[in-house]
């Protein structure tokens, strides 16, 4: 087989009734890489995954996965992919071991091989101890790991993860991230969707930003960040009066206002000279600014710049804002 990309998509369109969910999507994912499709709720991420995983047909366009056309060679595609959707796809009333053994049988493994594979996966996902209990008694994070394990029973060439960490606590999220990192080490191509900018930034080699059914940007995390002003200077003000004063001095130049934490952000090129000049300008008396921090632009900034609206669910923004500015 020639070294063609793991996933090639061109001109993909899909509508549900009058709602245009995908509006001409082009993508290319290299083998052995992690690709993140990033976008807010309703951007069309899940629809894209479902088309690539042969579950739904596109209205127009072409897609090839692992070298096979998702319509003409549907069965071949299914033999080379794994899918973990947004809803746990395991039986609560079976044990973890039984679930995986069943998936192994469905993947065409003989009984003994299915048993071996199940044990192997339980071990690898740190579920061996719970393996003999019904999944109904498991925690959300454990189920998610089992769900991931189930999609690996067949050793897929391409693994689709639709919002793999949505609704998980931070520890389970870390565990999923670690699994993804390990998988990539073994040569699997991972295609994941996420609303979490941090997740895409952390895991993906390439990121495509999907908004309103169109890819509005496609590149590495660093490339995307270069599309907006390089850095942001966050000023932590000494008291509410200082906050009001500095906010007034900066006016429209302020890119961030956080009254509760008394933080004002302003764009900068990140050079010492520019930061010094800004500090002198907003705080000539050297009383108002308590601390400051210089950040590289986040994907959040990128998203805002590209689409004109913030990405992701509200909790994501809270999460981003919780980061204390580190003193530089």
């Amino acid at each position, binding site marked *: *087989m020639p070294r063609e990309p793991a996933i090639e998509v061109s001109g993909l369109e899909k509508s*549900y009734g009058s709602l245009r969910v995908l509006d001409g999507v082009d993508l290319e994912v290299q*083998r*052995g890489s992690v690709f993140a499709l990033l976008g807010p709720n309703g951007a069309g991420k899940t629809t894209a995954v*479902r088309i690539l*995983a*042969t*579950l*739904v*047909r596109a209205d127009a366009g072409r897609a090839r996965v*692992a070298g096979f056309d998702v319509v003409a060679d549907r*069965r*071949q595609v*299914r*033999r*080379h*992919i*794994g*899918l973990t*959707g*947004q*809803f*746990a*796809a*395991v*039986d609560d*009333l*079976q044990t973890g071991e*039984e679930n995986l053994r*069943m*998936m192994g*049988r*469905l*993947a*065409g*493994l003989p009984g003994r091989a299915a048993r071996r594979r199940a044990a*192997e996966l339980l071990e*690898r996902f740190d579920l061996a101890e719970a393996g003999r209990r*019904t999944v109904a008694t498991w925690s959300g994070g454990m189920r998610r790991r089992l769900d991931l394990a*189930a*999609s*690996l029973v*067949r*050793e897929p*060439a391409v693994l689709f993860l639709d919002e793999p960490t949505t609704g998980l606590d931070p520890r389970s999220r870390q565990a999923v991230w670690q699994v993804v990192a*390990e*998988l990539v*080490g*073994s*040569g*699997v191509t991972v295609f994941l969707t996420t609303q979490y900018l941090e997740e895409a930034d952390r895991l993906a080699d390439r990121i495509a930003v999907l908004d309103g059914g169109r890819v509005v940007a496609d590149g590495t995390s660093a490339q995307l960040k270069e599309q907006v002003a390089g850095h942001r200077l966050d000023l932590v003000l000494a008291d509410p009066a200082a906050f009001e004063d500095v906010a007034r001095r900066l006016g429209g130049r302020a890119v961030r206002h956080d009254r509760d934490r008394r933080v004002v952000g302003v764009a900068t090129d990140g050079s010492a000279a520019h930061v010094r000049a800004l500090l002198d300008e907003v705080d000539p008396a050297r009383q108002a600014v308590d601390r400051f921090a210089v950040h590289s632009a986040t994907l959040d900034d990128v998203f805002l710049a590209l689409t004109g609206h913030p990405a992701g669910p509200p909790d994501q923004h809270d999460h981003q804002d919780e980061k204390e500015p580190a003193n530089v």
Partner: protein
Amino acid sequence: MSSNVRHLDRGSGGWGAVPPAGWAVVADWVTMAGRGLRLTRRNLDAVITSLALPVLLMLLFVYLFGGAIDTGTRYVTYVVPGVLLLCAGFGASMTAVGVTNDMTGGIIDRFRSMDVAGASVLAGHVAASVVRNLASTVLVFGVAFLIGFRPSAGPLDWVAAAGVLLLFILAISWLAAAVGLLARSPEAAGGFSFLIMFLPYPSSAFVPIDTMPSWLHGFADNQPVTPVIETLRGLLLGLPVGSSPWKAVAWCLGILVASVAAAGVLFRRRTAA
């Protein structure tokens, strides 16, 4: 980590080389039937309901109402076929709920992405349903014998009765699978049991039809449950059965064919979006 890139280059065969489609469907069906039975075993509440309720109903009919009902034979002997069909109704509702659960959860996507045919998934539920019903049938016969059920059927009659009952169970199970595909929630699917459970009452299952008001005769005489009941009762008691077996078989085959066809259409429609 045991994986590697080798599978990218193995072309169409290789790891888990896939047998011809037909054989894979059968193998998947067996796996799915096993799954259905495991889920049944774990869902003890539902099993106890579907087994205990018909048995309790039988005791209720025999000891509370039976004395007042003149059927020309011992009432327990009269009522056993009706109780068997009640059991089939309860079993069917579990099947409908199971199918709806699969369709509304994420698992059907996983099965489809693994190239498991919808037919295998549904037939797995039906197979589990048939096994459940065989168990409940044995239980009902056991309890019935204890309280005085004395059939006078010869070996061939038993075989014929078993065949008709099996066909009825199969038809009802596929009907349940189709309903499960139609229902948007497990609760809605469960409501289906009410309809099927109700059907034996306006039939000859518990009381002779000629004791019912005359406006009900038309329905009671011509609904699917009545010929099945008449056939089972006639065979078990060694009585002449007339045309009932043919009517019963025709009804069951009709329901079976229509349900399988409907299930096929509904499954495709349900998974198209």
